């Protein structure tokens, strides 16, 4: 640490890049705390999970994790989470836009409503959505008249995930939109750009990383969401049975190995997806600069 004042020399050993000198104090302490905390709270439980599933051997793992029923559950979980996150990214952008750009009576209230899904117990959300979208519910009845069944089908799962995912997108896009200088748009307009052009070429590139982050958060939430989904999903094997429910079902059958196998697949697939989204974001940033 004493070498902090000396400018880094070009002859520094390659290992030096691991300990880049920083002028901010407290690096060692805070990094140590970060690693310790992440290990205790996040990594150790996950390591225990991987360890438990590794004990069954590769063949046993494959047999437990890739049955037709669990494959259907993965497809459903990832599919609905993806669709819901995509829809919520678009709607969330519009809502963030309205909240940032315009002022109108009741704006504060609307702003607070966006956060409700964070605060509401997920089971409450699930029960409320299920009773509204059931065939005799307020929205379910007119939809049923049109021949659309929402509750107790995969569409119902998407509805629940739309509800749970919304604040993630709004709250990540909002601050970035706020920081966006109006002058840039004015400049674009004065240089002859149309409204759509301004949006596509000026605004969107600036907020795209935030939208992607919001998408990733909503997607990750959707993968793991259990409480709100089981009430509206119908839970029929092969049709509307999400992967987290299948894990619970395995546990109820005292099949711990099967449960950890499915959980491990979810963990790895989820991690890879988030990693790819992070990478996309970085790639997008690099391209922008």
């Amino acid at each position, binding site marked *: 640490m004493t070498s902090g004042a000396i400018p880094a020399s070009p002859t520094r050993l390659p290992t030096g890049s691991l300990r880049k000198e920083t002028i901010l104090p407290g690096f060692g302490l805070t990094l140590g705390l970060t690693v310790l905390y992440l290990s205790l709270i996040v990594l150790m439980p996950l390591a225990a999970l991987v360890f438990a599933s590794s004990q069954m051997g590769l063949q046993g793992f494959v047999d437990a994790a890739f*049955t*037709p*029923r669990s494959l*259907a559950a993965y497809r459903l979980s990832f599919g609905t989470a993806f669709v819901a996150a995509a829809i919520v990214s678009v709607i969330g952008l519009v809502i963030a836009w309205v909240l940032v750009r315009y002022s109108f009576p009741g704006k504060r209230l609307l702003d607070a409503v966006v956060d409700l899904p964070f605060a509401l117990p997920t089971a409450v959300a699930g029960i409320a959505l*299920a*009773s509204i979208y*059931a*065939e*005799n519910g307020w929205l379910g009845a007119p939809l049923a008249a049109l021949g659309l069944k929402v509750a*107790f089908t995969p569409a119902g799962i998407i509805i629940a995930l739309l509800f749970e995912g919304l604040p993630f997108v709004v709250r990540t896009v909002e601050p970035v939109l706020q920081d966006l200088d109006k002058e840039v748009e004015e400049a674009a307009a004065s240089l002859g750009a149309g409204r759509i052009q301004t949006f596509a070429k000026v605004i969107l590139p600036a907020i795209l990383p935030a939208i992607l982050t919001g998408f990733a958060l909503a997607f990750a939430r959707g993968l793991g969401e259990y409480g709100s989904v*089981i009430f509206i999903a*119908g*839970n*029929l*094997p*092969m049709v509307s049975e999400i992967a987290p*429910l299948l894990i*619970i*079902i395995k*546990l*109820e*059958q*005292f*099949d711990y190995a*099967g449960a950890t196998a499915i959980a491990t697949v979810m963990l790895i697939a989820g991690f890879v997806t988030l990693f790819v989204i992070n990478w996309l974001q970085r790639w997008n940033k690099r391209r922008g600069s």
Partner: protein
Amino acid sequence: MARFNLTSAVLAAAVLAVAITPARAERSMLNVSYDPTRELYQQFNPAFAKAWKEKTGEDLNIRMSHGGSGKQARTVIDGLAADVVTLALAYDIDEIAAKAGLMPADWQKRLPNNSSPYTSTIVFLVRKGNPKGIKDWGDLAKPGIAVITPNPKTSGGARWNFLAAWGYALRSSGGDESKAEEFVSAMFKNVPVLDTGARGSTTTFVQRKLGDVLITWENEAFLAKEEFPSDELQIVVPSLSILAEPPVALVDRNADRNGTRDVAQAYLEALYGPDGQRLAAKHFYRPVKPEYADAADLARFPKLEMITVDGAFGGWGAAQAKFFADGGVFDQIYAPVR
């Protein structure tokens, strides 16, 4: 600063004193049970505590935990220090004995009547006036009938439902297993929602008004009728059902560690006594000693023919392996057509 330190020292000492002093000479025990027994034990526990106090002079604190039977068994296996378990089916307690070794494997022989102080059966709940004309199991497999039952994989009650349906199909087809399989397949094709527990299905049927018929515990059906306007629902008794025996057991290792074996054993035996039997009947469980129950309560139970798990399926172990294990009969119903 000195005063602050003094205050906090006094406070700390006070907290410590409270923590160390036992809350009088009071022992506590934990009964881990399943969902529909909530109302029963709410009344039985104070009655037992009062009787215990009269007999020994000791104050008792009986704590309850309720949930799906399989989930409750799992939490006990994982270390919840239950002194006694009162679950929906013997298989769940078998698992506690086998997986965690908390009690001997022959636990079910230790108390009378397969360790079940009360029994129940499986009946149908239909809507006012029975608009779809549902009279027996055969009607549940007909097209256009929506049947509500929980998932047998997660719900103890649903396993009784499934076995009762199977028993009926086997009887009506003269013992043809493939016919029975066709029947339960057709019946489950009529199920729009598989809830994870019996209470969930009751809610789906009664409050969300989904489905034409709910297959459920007799006690749950009575309870639903009592909780909701009684003219909206009616009970239909099928021609054949199953004798459901929700067993109770002492969790030996936990009770010994907690020093509660004597009181836990007395608690279970009291379930067979006058108070326990009277309260069981009051809460719509069929008492094994009807002489202790009120005649008015007993009159509510319809007479019907019942098969038993041991008699028709060779016990829970065999039934579980054949019907509900991975790749078993239930999974075949939902297996993709290749």
